């Protein structure tokens, strides 16, 4: 088991399998109706781990749409967040953790079991 301490920008508890995406822009990379990523993986009920978010102006509305369509990730973990994603997570009530280094995030692999508890991220406990 590994634990990382980050910053809980949107507080909450979540448990699920990791989906790791290097860079993500919610506008263009994710289908808001299905929760599918451009590469065919699904974000639905997963814990999204992303090293670098890219800002795109309507990204917040895409995150909100994912939640309304019940296909959103259960939580989002990033090295550093950016305003569009923070706004989207607050509006949709999706737990958001940032402040974990890319080096630490890179130890997380697709399918790892993740528990998010406030700012604490537990991997394969």
């Amino acid at each position, binding site marked *: 088991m590994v634990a990382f301490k980050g910053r809980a*920008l949107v507080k909450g508890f979540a448990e699920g399998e990791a989906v790791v995406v290097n860079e993500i822009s919610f506008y263009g990379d994710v289908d808001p109706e299905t929760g599918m990523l451009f590469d065919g993986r699904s974000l639905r009920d997963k814990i999204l781990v992303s090293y670098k978010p890219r800002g795109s102006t309507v990204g917040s509305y895409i995150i909100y749409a994912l939640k309304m369509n019940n296909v959103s990730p259960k939580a989002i973990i990033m090295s550093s967040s950016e305003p569009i994603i923070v706004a989207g997570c607050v509006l949709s009530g999706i737990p958001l953790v*940032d402040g974990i280094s890319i080096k630490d995030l890179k130890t997380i692999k697709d399918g790892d079991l993740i528990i998010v508890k406030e700012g604490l991220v537990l991997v394969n406990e």
Partner: protein
Amino acid sequence: MVVLGVEDMYLTKEEERILGGEEGWAKAKALEVIVKVGESLGAERLVNIEHAHISGVSYRNIGRHGEELIKSFADSGVRFSVKTTVNPIGFDLEDPSSIPYATIDEGYVRHQYNILTSLKAMGADLTLSCTPYYLPQVTSIKEGTSVAWGESNAVLYANTVLGLKTNREGGPMSLMAAITGKTYYYGLHLEENRVPRVEYVLDNKSNMDEADYGVLGEIIASIHEGINPPYLDIDLDEISLREFLAALGAAGNIAMVYINGITRGRVKKGELKKEMVYRKEIESRREELGIKERPDLIYFGCPHAGVDDLRVIASQLKATKRKFDGKIVVTTSRDTIARLGKETIGILRSHGVRLIGDTCLVVSPFGYKGLRVATNSYKSLYYLSKRGIKVSLLSIRELKDVIEKW
């Protein structure tokens, strides 16, 4: 590893009361969004604003769920805390079918109207223009005032020309700011970030048109780093100024420029680091983006054309006996249309120009892959190219020659 606490931001008693829901869930939610975004950026407190300009209102851009989110706020009965203007939508309200090469069905119109109804219910002034800086309710705001604007070209104009203070409020942030009358105290709200440190020196700036200035915007956006504004000593007319600022906003993250003679504020000229920009770079990029085959459509009015633009366009049209064998479109605001003289309107009409209000080609469902568009706007070139439209640059002063050649 140092972990910053999320309770770090200082909030006033009033702000804490709003966050606690004493003025309803809508204001609490909107303030929570602003506080969390501010905290993620390291802002120490909030700042009161006096005006908001909301972008992200076109149904094409925000979709069904954006519409529903805005409606949920409006249905709560919340009213905007400050005067609020609104960006263009997906079609001309007076004639939804006026945009060529665009399909706007009944469903689209209905969804777009729903968004407007919600914004109106909260107290928005439905100006539907990306140039709020020409409106009297905005030009009367005192210099140095903090505002919260979406729409990058307007943000650049506010900081650079009007002396208002705003960051680029993306996504729903300008809406949240309108609801609360506040934004996070960060970036260009702080004086020290408004002081230029680097000057870009042009080796030859004679006789540049607005399309050249658009290309200059692209070049500076690609080399300038950091939040402090680039400094330029250039002498440009209103049309070039607007196209230059819009290009900077489209091609990068810049939110302010310091232009000698236009921008007011502190600058220590002796301490500016100098970087050269060569005219031949601008010329070779113009050449690359020049018209290679007959355009299907000539487009002006991104950002929305002002009265000046329309007069110059009319005089170019008047100077030729030929009529363009394609479409000419100009997008502008209702306010500008109302201020046009009969003669200008007459010339535009007789040359088949479609004068369209409330919208623009970038936010409407316009065009298809392979369509050929020529425009004086680097910004619309940047965005329309992403849809597979073949866009080339022409300036207004080249219009007569282009009509006669093609």
